[in-house]
Every structure is written in structure tokens, then in C-alpha cells.
């Protein structure tokens, strides 16, 4: 592997290995994410998709390897990266409203002891507007639907005005309105030259929403533009052969595709239980 | 007062009668060359009686040392072993050792257990004004405490009849000392002006003292240290001190002084100067080897301290024989 530090490359991951106790969750992963792209990370449950994102963010200590953001370690580049965690990672019964949550995205710029001010509030309101949640600014977050909560998380990341956005399953369990809103935001971000990496669960929509894809199952099996990389062979390598019918369907080819689509809309049937 | 005279007369007769065979025999009863009985006692006061009556025949240790609160004391594993290894277990009874009651009940089937204070007649026992319990602090009245000499002597004699005469002689001698002590206390208390004969302590250990020697006693905490003194109790105490112009309150060796300190602070806030008159021994004696480490020494210390503080003069006492 080359050891150049390319400071125009948003994300460069080299030899990344992460293990929980003795079991490897990520093994020798090398990834390069170019700027101004929408990349999906797909793979079966337990494949290490969330782990990869968290390792990039410094939330998990890797056993080996390094991660560079524009050629420098993440710890020096925090301002450039924004995180949208899984919706289930917090307790939504917390006493606060949507605007307040979005405001938290500004905390990173405030430093110790300072409180958010009028300018921060306005930025937060703008971010809420971008996700279509202006009307809900003062709504208690416990009273929001799942999709609305997801959009609040997205707005919180937007308000950071970062160059890179890392999102963990933002489309999981959201309603159609929310899905459309999120896709709009993603496309706008790409148009603005930002880099977006999304852990995605719905193979069906990968070609529609993303231009690059990472196929991950502990190892990195393939990575690159969707058209080149998102093939049945690669999917078979990632998911295993028992899901062949579905995989054919995703490719859009054989007659079994439609039946498979209906039966497995949006989800690759997998023996393992949900969510890691 | 009448019953006191009768009691003293009776004692004198008993002493005389008991002492007659000794006088006639013209020789002291045989002491022991080595220890015959290994005894264990709970509080120091009980151990002291056993020591005096048992003499060289008995070796006694006290489970609870100075500063230990017998109302709250819990037996440890080591204590249980020591109890089992002893020949006789002496304890006060009347619920003083509240947390050991069950233990002693179980021990009775395998050991000789002697509640020495049970010898005190029912009509002399005082009750706790707040709860329906007997007040166990009987040793505060030297006259009443004398009964324990008798019950100790009887228990030792039953266990070791060979030295009956020896125990009897010891008991008589001790009773004489207790009588002296009783007289001394009466004498000293007379020196306190009547209105100031008020004893305020943390917990209510001195009812018998008050009853026996004509002193009013008052305590915010009630009879047992297991209950907490409340704000109301403290305020009533302060009221009493201020209205009766009492100069001193007394802390105890086995009870934390913070309640009394709060009372003193509260009284001072009302303009009344109150001093802590000294430390009294209530539920435990002083350190071993000091005069206060014996029953008689402890009581004398208490009396001297109380009288000195409430009269404002030092006590005038001849050297006390322990």
C-alpha cells in the first residue's frame, strides 16, 4: 500500500483492523473515498459497517491500521466531519425539543463555558428548514415520529457545515416523506461538493441514491462506482450464495426478479437477527 | 427515705449475720491458688462486680470496653467463640444489651448465663417514660446495684460450692464499699442548690441516679441510643436549660456529643451561657487501669464532675478507695 498523505482525499483508510475481544469485525480494510461523492456501505448484519464508521470517527480503537481525513489524523480534523448516528442510539424521551437537538451540532464550535447565541439559533432553524422540519422546531422529540427524529439528527449534522458526512442507516424505518427529504439533502450536499458516506441497508435503492458503493463483510470485498462494482458476483461474494434469487432481482434481469422483489422488498433475507 | 433506712438496716443485719461464722472461726476463708472459673461479662460494670466477688478464683473479661455503647453492640463471630469458651456468662439483663438478647437466650441451654441485675426487685425498677420498657441503667444507683453482688455470689457458689465462704466474704466486703459510695453520693449532691439539681445528658441513662439521689434528669435522646433525638427534643432541652438557668450539660463517653453540642449552641443563641460540664460514664466505664476503670471509680467520677459543674466549685473529697 502507498503511504502518501493525500490531503485532497477526504477519507483514506489503510490496513484497518478492528476486533472485539478475539473476534475480528473489520479485517485489513483499505478504502479511499473521493470528494463530492455519495457512497453507500452495504453488507450483511455483523459485517462491520457501523464499526467502520465509528472507527473513522475515533469512537472505536482499531487494532491496526490508520485513518486519514484530508491527509491528517481525524483528531486534527474534527471540524471537517459530521456524524449522523443510528436513531436507536439515544433515548428519545429526553426532555428537549427538536431545535435544541439541532443546536447541539453547534456546540463543537462554541468551546467550553459559552452558550449558543442568536446566530447559532438561526443556523439551527435553517438546518431544520432544509430537512422540512421547521414547523416542529419547538416540538418535544418524544412526540416526533421515527422519520421526523431521523431528520432532526440529519439537521444536527448539517448545522456543523462539515465537508464530510458519515451516516449510520439513516433510511432505516422511515416513512416515505422522510426518505425523500433525506435523499434531497444528500443530493444537495453532493452538489455542494461535500462527501457523504452512508451505511445503507436497502440494496434495492443503492443504484438510485448513490454513485459509489462499498461492499463489506469483515473484509472489503469491493469498492468503487456503483455501475462497476454493484454486480451479482460481488454481491454473492459479500452476502453468500443463498440469497441468489434476490440478488438477481436487484440486478434487474431475470423474471424471478419481480417475485423476489415483492417477497423481500428492501431487505436481504438473512439468518441473523436485526441490527448490530 | 424510709425504705432506704430499712434497706440499710437489713444489709447491716445480713452483713453481721453473714460475718458471724467468719468472726467465730477467726480466720479468712481460703482463696484460690489458681483460677477455677473463667467468666465473661458484657459491660465493664458487671465485670467489675464479678471481679470483686470472685477474687482470685475467677478470671473475668469484659466483652465491651470503654466507649462502647451496649444498646447497639452486635456480637461478632469472635465474641460468640469467647462466650462459648467461658464457664459462666455474666450480663446485666433488663434489656441493656439489646442486640445480644437472642444470643443469650440460645446460650442458656449450654452455658450458665447470669443476668445479674434481675436480682433487683420489681418495685425498684423504673420504666422508660416514652416506651413501655424497663430502664436498664440500674447501676447508677449504688444501693440498687448492690443486689448484683448477691446474685453474682449465688451464681459463683452454685457453680463452685467449694469456695462458697470465700465468695460470701468477698461479697460482704464489696457491699460495704458500695454502701460507703452510696453515702458519699448523698453527701455530695446535698451541696448543689436545689433548683440547680438538674442533670442534662444526651441519653436517658440517669433515671435511677435521679430517683435515688434526688436529682432531676433530662435527656433529649430517650433511654436507648438507638433512637435519634429530633429537633423537638433539642428545643425542649434548650427551653429547660434557659428557663431554669442551668449552667452545665454533660456528655457521655459512649454517646456522640454532637446532640449536646447542638443544644449548647442553641442555648447560646438565646443568650444563655452553657458549658459542657465534663464527660460522664454512662453505659461504659473508663479505661482499664485508671480509677474510672472500676465501677466505684466511675460513679465517683460522675458525681464529682456533676457536682463541680453545677456548683461551680471543685468537689471536696477524700481519696477514694477503689
Amino acid at each position, binding site marked *: 500500500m502507498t503511504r502518501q498523505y493525500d490531503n485532497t482525499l477526504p477519507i483514506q483508510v489503510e490496513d484497518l483492523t478492528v476486533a472485539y475481544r478475539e473476534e475480528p469485525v473489520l479485517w485489513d480494510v483499505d478504502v479511499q473515498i473521493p470528494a463530492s461523492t455519495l457512497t453507500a456501505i452495504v453488507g450483511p448484519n455483523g459485517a462491520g459497517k457501523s464499526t467502520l464508521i465509528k472507527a473513522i470517527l475515533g469512537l472505536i480503537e482499531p487494532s491496526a491500521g490508520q485513518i486519514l481525513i484530508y491527509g491528517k489524523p481525524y483528531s486534527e480534523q474534527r471540524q471537517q466531519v459530521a456524524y449522523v*448516528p443510528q436513531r436507536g*442510539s439515544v433515548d428519545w424521551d429526553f*426532555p428537549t425539543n427538536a431545535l*435544541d437537538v439541532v443546536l447541539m451540532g453547534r456546540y463543537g464550535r462554541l468551546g*467550553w*463555558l459559552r452558550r449558543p447565541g442568536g446566530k447559532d439559533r438561526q443556523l439551527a432553524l435553517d438546518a431544520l428548514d432544509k430537512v422540512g422540519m421547521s414547523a416542529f422546531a419547538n416540538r418535544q422529540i418524544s412526540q416526533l415520529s421515527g422519520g421526523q427524529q431521523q431528520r432532526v439528527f440529519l439537521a444536527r449534522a448539517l448545522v456543523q457545515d462539515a465537508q464530510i458526512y458519515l451516516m449510520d442507516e439513516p433510511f432505516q424505518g422511515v416513512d416515505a416523506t422522510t426518505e425523500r427529504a433525506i435523499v434531497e439533502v444528500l443530493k444537495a450536499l453532493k452538489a455542494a461538493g461535500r462527501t457523504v458516506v452512508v451505511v445503507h441497508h436497502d440494496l434495492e435503492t443503492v443504484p438510485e441514491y448513490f454513485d459509489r458503493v462499498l461492499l463489506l463483510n469483515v473484509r472489503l470485498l469491493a469498492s468503487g462506482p456503483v455501475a462497476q462494482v454493484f454486480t451479482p458476483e460481488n454481491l454473492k461474494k459479500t452476502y453468500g450464495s443463498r440469497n441468489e434469487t434476490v440478488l438477481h432481482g436487484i440486478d434487474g434481469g431475470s423474471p424471478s426478479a419481480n417475485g423476489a422483489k415483492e417477497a423481500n422488498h428492501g431487505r436481504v433475507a438473512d439468518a441473523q437477527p436485526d441490527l448490530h | 427515705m424510709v425504705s432506704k433506712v430499712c434497706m440499710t438496716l437489713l444489709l447491716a443485719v445480713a452483713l453481721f449475720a453473714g460475718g458471724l461464722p467468719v468472726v467465730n472461726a477467726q480466720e479468712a476463708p481460703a482463696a484460690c491458688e489458681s483460677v477455677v472459673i473463667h467468666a465473661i461479662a458484657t459491660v465493664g460494670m458487671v465485670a467489675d462486680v464479678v471481679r470483686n466477688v470472685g477474687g482470685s478464683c475467677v478470671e473475668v473479661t469484659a466483652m465491651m470496653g470503654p466507649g462502647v455503647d451496649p444498646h447497639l*453492640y452486635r456480637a461478632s463471630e469472635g465474641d460468640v467463640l469467647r462466650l462459648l469458651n467461658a464457664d459462666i456468662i455474666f450480663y446485666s439483663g433488663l434489656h441493656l444489651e439489646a442486640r445480644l438478647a437472642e444470643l443469650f437466650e440460645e446460650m442458656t441451654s449450654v452455658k450458665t448465663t447470669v443476668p445479674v441485675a434481675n436480682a433487683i426487685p420489681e418495685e425498684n425498677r423504673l420504666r422508660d417514660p416514652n416506651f413501655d420498657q424497663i430502664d436498664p441503667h440500674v447501676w447508677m444507683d449504688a444501693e440498687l446495684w448492690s443486689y448484683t453482688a448477691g446474685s453474682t455470689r449465688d451464681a459463683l457458689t452454685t457453680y463452685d460450692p467449694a469456695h462458697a465462704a470465700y465468695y460470701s466474704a468477698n461479697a460482704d466486703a464489696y457491699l460495704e464499699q458500695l454502701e460507703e459510695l452510696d453515702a458519699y453520693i448523698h453527701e455530695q449532691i446535698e451541696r448543689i442548690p436545689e433548683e440547680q439539681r438538674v442533670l442534662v445528658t444526651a441519653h436517658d441513662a440517669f433515671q435511677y441516679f435521679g430517683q435515688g439521689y434526688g436529682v432531676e434528669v433530662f435527656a433529649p435522646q430517650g433511654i436507648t441510643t438507638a433512637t*435519634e433525638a429530633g429537633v423537638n427534643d433539642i428545643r425542649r432541652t434548650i427551653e429547660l436549660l434557659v428557663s431554669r438557668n442551668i449552667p452545665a450539660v454533660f456528655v457521655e463517653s459512649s454517646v*456522640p456529643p454532637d446532640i449536646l453540642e447542638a443544644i449548647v449552641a442553641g442555648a447560646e443563641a438565646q443568650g444563655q451561657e452553657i458549658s459542657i460540664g465534663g464527660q460522664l460514664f454512662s453505659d461504659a466505664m473508663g479505661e482499664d487501669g485508671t480509677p474510672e476503670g472500676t465501677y466505684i471509680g466511675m460513679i465517683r467520677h460522675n458525681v464529682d464532675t456533676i457536682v463541680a459543674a453545677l456548683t461551680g466549685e471543685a468537689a471536696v473529697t477524700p481519696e477514694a478507695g477503689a
Partner: protein
Amino acid sequence: MDVLQTLSLIFTDYTLRNVALGAAILGIVSGALSTFAVLRKQSLLGDAVSHAALPGVVLAFILTGLKTPLVLMVGAVIAGWIGVTLVSLIVRETRVKYDSALGIVLAVFFGLGMVLLTWLQGQNNAGQSGLDHFLFGRAAAIVQSDVITMAALGGVVLLVTALFWKEFKILSFDGQYAATLGFPVRWIDTLLTTLIVVAVVLGLQMVGVVLMSAMIVAPAAAARQWTDRLSLMLILSSTFGALAGVGGAVISSLTSGLPTGPTIVLCISAIVIVSLLFAPNRGIVWGGLRGRRNRRELQQAMLLEKLYDASTRNNGQSQPVESLRFILSGGRLEDALGVLAGQGLIAPETGDRWALTPTGIEAARSLQAPGGIRSSTLFSNPKEAAL
């Protein structure tokens, strides 16, 4: 002594004033920290800290020979802090879960404390009495210097909480996200935990080891019932704590035989029970009433719709009551019809029959339109009805 007289005594009487002040400080400080403990699901942390403090108190006395409150509190803080650190270590390094780790540390430390106390009582040390009163507190023995100490420490705790408000907030809501923003989450967590330890120790001499945990859980649990804003929740929590403190002090001073510490805890418990039952929105009573109302509204809407369907099938004719009996049994049918009539949606006709009014027809139609349930005015809370 009547209550009003007693209340005025809070200001004039030295003893009651100090006890009430001390209790109020305790209530405010523990109430404030309680907010974060409860929100972070660390409610039992207070319990663990207070029990873990016992050996610290005893050891402080053994090592220094002093029984001054400050010395004992320092011992308590150190022991409590060690206990909490151990809990984190256990959770991090083993598979043992948080609540089990809390239980282990709590039991081990408290047991150690009891062993030390028992050993101490066997020593012939005349000064050792009174340490076991840390178990239930000696609230009535509070003097002015104690209050000053509590006020100073409590003030520092509150000040730090105010300074780090946003850090504590984001840590409590989404610690992981906070880490990505660059906040040193471990340090903030340690700081917050330390504040909780100090708050617990402050209250130990008043309420005691066994009951202090109540003051770290109850005030916030009660406050949460009444508000959805974090800042208000903290203020309310502190207020409840202070009320319980002063209330407990006053009530226990009205008569002999009421220990102050436990009375304070009883007061905060009463506040919690009332909050759990009667708070609007989150209260049980409220929820029950609302549930009943929602059910009734649902049944009324269904009734309207069935009536509409039936009359549509019969060319707009009115319907006999009996034909609707299958929807609602007993007198509830009549009640529901009465409500619908009162809303002007249906009207009675002779022979015990019912027909829809024009308004009623419109309401039924919009109910049946797509998304109609959500937007219908028949429901006070459409979202709940749709769920």
C-alpha cells in the same frame, strides 16, 4: 404546637433554622444532580455512592482520630469516588453489566464499612462512638458551622453545574455524538460523577447512608413528570428537594419521636407519588382519563361511520337504535348517541331512530377519506387515535 407557629420558628429558632437550612441545601444540591443521574439512567448511582462512603468515614476516623464533619466527609468522598471508579472499570474490562457492577461495589464497600465499624467497637477507644450514626443521619445535631460548610460545598457544586450545563446536557443525551464533536467525554463524565459524589456526601450526615439514595433519584423522577424542558426540570427537581428538606425538618420538629432524616425522605416520596399519579400528560391518573376519553371518541367515530354506511345503503333513511347495538353495549350506546347529537352530527327521529345531520354526513365522509382519521376533528389527539 401548631403549624403556623412552627413555620415562623424556622426564622427565629436557632436549632430549627439550622436544620431547615441544612435540609434545604441538601435538597437543592441533590435535586440538581438528581436530574442528570436520572436522565443518564444512573439512578442507583446515588445508592452505590452512599453505601460505598461508609468505609471511607470509618477509615477517616481511624487514620486521623478526628470526628469533625469535614474530615469524615473527605473520607466519604474519597471512598465514594473509588467505588464509582471501580464500577466503571468493572463495566469496561469485564462482561459484567452496569447494574450488577453497582450492586457488587455497593455490597462490598458497605460490608467493609460494617466490618470496620464492628472492629472499631471492639477496640477500647472511647472516642469511636457515633460513627454508625452515619447510617441514618443525625439531622437534628446540625449546627451553624455545618450549614456553612454545606452551603459552601453546595454552592461550588451548583456553580460547576451551571458552567458545564451544555456539556452535561449533550453528554446525557448523546455521548457518542459529543465525542465526535471533540468533547472529552470521559473527563466530563468523571466531572459529573464527582459532583454527584459530593452531593451525596453532603447529605449523608443529615439523611444517612441508607436513605440518601432517595434524594438522588426521587426529586428528578418527580420533576420529569411535570415538564419537558431540561432547565425547568432541574429547577423543579431542586425545588422539590428543598421542599422535602424543609418540610421534613419542620414536620419532625412538631413532635418528639420523628427522626428528621427519614421524615425528609418520606416527604420527597410523597412528592414523587403525587407526581406519578397526577401530573398532566405523564401522570397515571391523567393517562387513564385520557385513555378513556380516546376510547370513547374512537367508539363515537365508529358509531358515526356505521350509521353513515347503514343509512347510505338504505337511501339515507334514519336507522333504528337496535341496529347499532352491536357496536356499543349497555347504556354506552345511548351515551355515545347523546354526545354525537350534542355535537350536532346526528339527530333523533320518532320511533327511537337516528339520522345524520348534514354536518354529520360531512364529518363521516371526511373520516372515510384517505388520511381522514389523522385530520378528523372528532379526535382531541389524532396522533394517539391513529396509533
